């Protein structure tokens, strides 16, 4: 009986202990999947224009998420055609929304392009939850507008995924859309008025655009269609299953990867280091978990940088390899849309080619970059300041590091030369030789190959930091640290590059503000020096409106006449999709 009691007690105690997966890596078990929807100002464009977008993140019910709930802070947008990825962006989300633009390079060929959007967290769901829509881009110099839409027979039977036809209006109108007039002269001011007819005080997150009639593709999904099509792909996490491999990026960008051995098998318990080439000694490390996975949460310090990943080999190198998970990778094939643009739409594209040519000739741009606030960055420093710093240029020129250590750095000794060279440090506190080889950093990056750097002389070196202490950094112990900073980091680093897996990170994409010229309604201002050939009369990507509120948005007509469509799209806090359109005419 005593044995049973002991076993039971042990079992309870074991279960009550905090669970650790191989030390530390346990992804957060959110059970609420995410989805996102992208509105664009148009869907037919000409190369050389900006494609403006707004992005809304919501959970699996379509709700915007309550304020207590954690949501992703970054989304990834990919623009591609059937052959290749054209561009991608990492977009910073503020309370689940963002807006910006893709510049469509002049060299893009005529044809269909796909914009897809997702968060890191959405990667845990089927890729069916990724938002996808098509745009049609015409090359500015393509007079024939020749493009591939696939096999003509196939086109007849083609449908896009689970998408539904574009709605003409929301079934139940939550918002009243009123335009100040239906016909406007050129270069005048008008107003789009949005009245929230919702009960209670919940919010709506809306986007309004005014673009030429025919600027939208018939087959692209509305938010309602996207929600119904993707709902079946959402899955809650099964607590008994393996943790989700992709983290929700609530605090910063997370870089994940896997370590495998020479047979391609996952290697748990391996230590992966990450450093950025810099004038600071920085280091992050992560130990791989059961599936050989590792993850790094990155501060903005690591944005727009070249990062170097390597494996710490405590014994023999057994052929372990690091595989980084691509942030902007989509693993589903490009899907050609059903149908081709109508003749009216092709005519509109021809007109747009002329418009873009005028814009280019006069250097007209109607978008301002919204500058992000400067933020303090925090590298993962190994130490705050080195115990000794030497600037070789301040002394008599010396031929190589061997001479520099001999003459200047008393705490660092190198024995032998070339392949035979070994080095050791003296502890600054105890004044005793340390037993092991100090850890070496080259231009901020940890490396175990010091040899290429020993030949550098005073004229090659910026500084040498000697941190002559027995030093602990998390679970890593360093018997002294030597950091060499060169005047040409790239040149010298090329010699040891093969030991690393590199990654070039980007900055989060900048937000764009639509900035049209402003006109007074009563006195049209005709500026003959510069034309106003805007096709987009209004782009307001982020309107927050509460029940009972009215929002009035001014817009300005351009020199172009014709029929324009006013589109109101968005989602309410309760997950109800909003879609309304009205036609206005400019004469």
């Amino acid at each position, binding site marked *: *009986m*005593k044995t049973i*009691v002991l076993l*039971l*007690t042990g*079992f*309870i105690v074991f*279960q*009550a202990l*905090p*669970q650790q997966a191989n030390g*530390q*890596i*346990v*992804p*957060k*078990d959110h*059970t609420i999947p995410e989805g996102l929807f992208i509105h664009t100002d148009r869907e037919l464009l000409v190369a050389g224009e900006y494609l403006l977008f707004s992005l809304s993140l919501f959970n699996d019910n379509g709700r915007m998420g309550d304020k207590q709930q954690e949501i992703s802070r970054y989304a990834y947008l990919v623009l591609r055609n059937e052959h290749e990825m054209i561009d991608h962006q990492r977009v910073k989300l503020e309370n689940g929304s963002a807006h910006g633009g893709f510049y469509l390079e002049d060299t893009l060929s005529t044809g269909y392009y796909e914009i897809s959007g997702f968060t890191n967290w959405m990667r845990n769901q089927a890729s069916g939850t990724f938002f996808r829509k098509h745009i049609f881009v015409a090359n500015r110099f393509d007079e024939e507008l020749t493009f591939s839409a696939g096999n003509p027979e196939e086109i007849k039977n083609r449908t896009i995924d689970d998408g539904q036809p574009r709605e003409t209006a929301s079934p139940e109108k939550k918002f009243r859309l009123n335009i100040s007039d239906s016909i406007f002269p050129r270069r005048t001011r008008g107003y789009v008025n949005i009245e929230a007819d919702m009960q209670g005080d919940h919010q709506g997150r809306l986007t309004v655009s005014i673009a030429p009639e025919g600027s939208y593709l018939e087959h692209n999904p509305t938010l309602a269609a996207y929600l119904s099509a993707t709902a079946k792909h959402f899955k809650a996490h099964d*607590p008994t299953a393996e*943790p989700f491999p992709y*983290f*929700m990026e*609530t*605090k910063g960008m*997370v870089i994940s990867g896997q370590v495998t051995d020479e047979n391609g098998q996952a290697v748990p318990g391996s230590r992966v280091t990450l450093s950025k080439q810099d004038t600071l000694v920085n280091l*992050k*490390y*992560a130990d791989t978990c059961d599936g050989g996975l590792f*993850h*790094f*949460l990155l*501060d903005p310090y690591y944005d727009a940088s070249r990062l170097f990943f390597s494996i710490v080999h405590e014994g023999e190198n057994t052929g372990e390899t690091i595989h980084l998970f691509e942030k902007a990778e989509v693993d589903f094939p490009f899907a050609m849309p059903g149908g081709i643009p109508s003749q009216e739409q092709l005519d509109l594209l021809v007109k747009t080619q002329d418009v873009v040519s005028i814009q280019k000739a006069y250097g007209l741009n109607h978008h301002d970059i919204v500058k992000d606030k400067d933020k303090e960055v*925090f590298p*993962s*420093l*190994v*130490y*705050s*300041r080195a115990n000794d710093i030497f600037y070789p240029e301040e002394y008599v020129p010396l031929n190589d590091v061997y001479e520099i250590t001999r003459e200047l750095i008393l705490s660092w000794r190198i024995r032998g030369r070339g392949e035979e060279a070994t080095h050791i440090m003296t502890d600054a*506190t105890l004044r005793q030789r340390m037993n092991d080889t100090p850890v070496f950093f080259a231009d901020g990056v940890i490396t175990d190959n010091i040899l290429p750097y020993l030949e550098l002389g005073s004229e090659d070196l910026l500084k040498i930091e000697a941190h002559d*202490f*027995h*030093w*602990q*950094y*998390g*679970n890593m*112990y360093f018997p002294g640290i030597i950091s060499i900073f060169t005047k040409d980091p790239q040149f010298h680093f090329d010699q040891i590059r093969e030991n690393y897996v590199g990654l070039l990170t980007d900055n989060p994409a900048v937000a764009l503000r639509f900035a049209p010229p402003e006109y007074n309604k009563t006195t049209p201002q005709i500026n003959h020096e510069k034309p106003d050939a805007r096709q987009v009369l209004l782009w307001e990507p982020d309107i927050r409106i509460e029940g009972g509120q009215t929002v009035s948005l001014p817009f300005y007509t351009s020199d172009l006449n014709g029929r324009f469509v006013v589109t109101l799209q968005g989602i309410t806090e309760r997950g109800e999709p909003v879609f309304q359109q009205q036609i206005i005419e400019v004469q």
Partner: protein
Amino acid sequence: MTRLTFTILIAFASLAPLKDAFSQTIRDSNNNAFSPRLSGEVVNYNVPTKGSQYLFQDWLPARVLFQSGESVEVASLRYNGYHNTVVWRHPKTHRHIRLDDLLIKEFSLNHPARTARFVRFQAPGATETIFAECLFDENIRLLALRNIEQTDQVVESYVGTMVSVPVLEPRPEYYVVSAAGEVTRISRLNRRNLERAFPGNERDIRRLLRQHNLRIRNEAELLEAVTLIDDMLGQEGR
């Protein structure tokens, strides 16, 4: 072993997997997997002394807040008032590590009697910041430098040899930081020194302290007085 006890054990055992599911749910990836790394020099402060070098003799669980705003929970931390250093005991190797304090913004030691929160503080005339315990932190702040100083030296037998052993005693220094940011050192604990920290309000403070029969002879009375003064000045400000 009664049948009741056995039944309770069985019930707990069956609940254990639920506990596991719960703990997995509440675990925050960004707090656990991505915790910042503590770094510092491996030290040996185990020299013979009479009197402790530490504010609290025991290793205590603590929370360390980095300059970056990230924080990490550690199982064993102490404040060494003799060397003015924060010492972390590594959970696996049990090495004692003097933390690189410039990377740290503040830390809290969770002593059973109280949670001692230490913040970076630059005393007037000092060239560098050191950690001071924040005893009170409202409109005005009361900070204590937890200095431990050598007051004497005795010769004692230690591991078979006669060695000179420093005699250590706590010598805290108190600083009042006014709402306007003016720093005043309370060189000796008494009413007058405290009143001087609030120029222009001396008379009101004297009245307040008399009213509450506070003579400021120890840290507890100083803390009580600062609390009352903050309340009084706050009300005047409103």
